[in-house]
């Protein structure tokens, strides 16, 4: 993986987003400037760990780096604070997947780089339906 993983590990491990101190809008990924009011004053805040599926797909042709994981279920989840997050949906039978399914956050391995032994961890979602 070309990106510096360690720089973002709090974001990946705890779904650490941020909140505008002026208008209370919340963001994940964290925003640099509040998109609603333009404020520069944002503080880190953990996102809720439950929500519902807004849309999803079953990806059968994976990108380089994810070989062997196909099919991957990817969803956009609306958390209970209204923030939308993209993540994989795991441990759910494909035929049970539905828009509107409740989900909760889980901590999982995202992928590993077999040649250097690096393992990347982060959040995924599991469906409660």
């Amino acid at each position, binding site marked *: *993986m*070309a*990106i510096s*993983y360690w720089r*973002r590990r709090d*974001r*990946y491990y705890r779904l650490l987003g941020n909140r505008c101190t002026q208008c209370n809008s919340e*963001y994940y*990924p964290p925003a640099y400037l509040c*998109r609603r009011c333009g404020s520069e004053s944002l503080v880190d805040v953990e996102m809720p760990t439950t929500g519902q599926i*807004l*849309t*999803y*797909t*079953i*990806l*059968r*042709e*994976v*990108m*380089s*780096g*994810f*070989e062997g*994981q196909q099919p*991957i279920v*990817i*969803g*956009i989840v609306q958390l209970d604070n209204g923030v*939308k*997050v*993209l*993540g*994989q949906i795991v441990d759910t039978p494909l035929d049970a997947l539905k*828009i509107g399914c409740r989900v909760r956050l889980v901590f999982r391995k*995202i*992928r590993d780089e077999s040649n250097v032994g690096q393992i*990347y961890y*982060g959040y995924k979602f599991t469906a409660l339906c």
Partner: protein
Amino acid sequence: MARVIISSVGYTRVGDHWDKSILDLAVEAARKALKPYPNIRPEVIIVGNMFSSQSSKQEHLGALLASALNLTGTPAFKVEAACASGGVAFNVAYSKVRSGEVSSALVVGVEKMRDLDVSEASLALSMAESAEYTQFMGASFLSLNGMLARLYMETYNVSRSELSAFPAIAHTNAATAEHAQFRKAISVEDVSRSPLVSDPLRLLDCAPLGDGAAALLLTSEEFNGDDESMVEVLSSKISTDIFSIYERDDMLRFNATKDAASKAFSEAGISVEDVDVLEVHDAFSVSAALSVEAMGFSKEGEGAKDAARGLYALKGRYPALTFGGLKGRGHPVGATGLYQIAELWLQLKGRGNVNQVEGCRIGVAQNIGGVDTTSVVSVLARR
């Protein structure tokens, strides 16, 4: 402000050019565009390209091409805006001629995709999206469009066969286009029965990987004498949206296209009804549908349904994808925006052969990068 004329165009066929490098392709297209005007030495060279560093381990494309064309001394550089790289390169070249800074510009779009295997190409394309929050999770560009397609079908009650209409139109037109990657008609049923790749998207909902290059010679009016059928660029506008679809309030609105189209139409002094021929960014069936909605050719939720009703067929009210679009002609990403303009040029010059839209006068091209994160809309007219 100078009036900007597209004096000539050049392009390769899109497809598998195993025997040609990225520079071979760019030179071939550029020389075809320069050939009709041997006395014009372009004052600037702009190259549109997305991922030559991934595909060819090559950057510095501007100087590379200038040198190969014996045009050293000429300012030359690459611009990149993901799949909108070609459209943005066109916009930059247009702006330079329009402003009077130069009186001629060569703009070349090129992409070499087939040297990458499918999973590497998928990774390269995903660089249009957030590396940290989209790509990291394994969400390829295809998967984002798969999610968008599901939301689109669910929200507007769009059927499978309605979603298949744009790819079928694209292939009908590509079948008779010499430079198209797939010169083969396919039916709505073929699309609807093709293998799932990122459901509900199927293989034939998605533009293929291909190599290609397209070039245009832009000049200010005086070079063109009294050519009866000059093609003038009336406007070209770029806009951008919130980067990732999941950060947007409404994921089904192509705001960048809506904004760019509204500004481009306004500057050109046209309305939707004036458009005779339309090249939209049909990288996926769903992106074509959302694009025509954002530009105002279809109402919200009606883009795919209107395609199924024939609105965008070659003989329809708004002929679109007239040489196959991204789906049929092919989508060598950094070149795509320039193939679109070159194809409008053919139409407006009356050189479309069997694909000709009779009597067309106004053409519109829309080229997007990411999921409508960057959009370029340009308006061309036959003088």
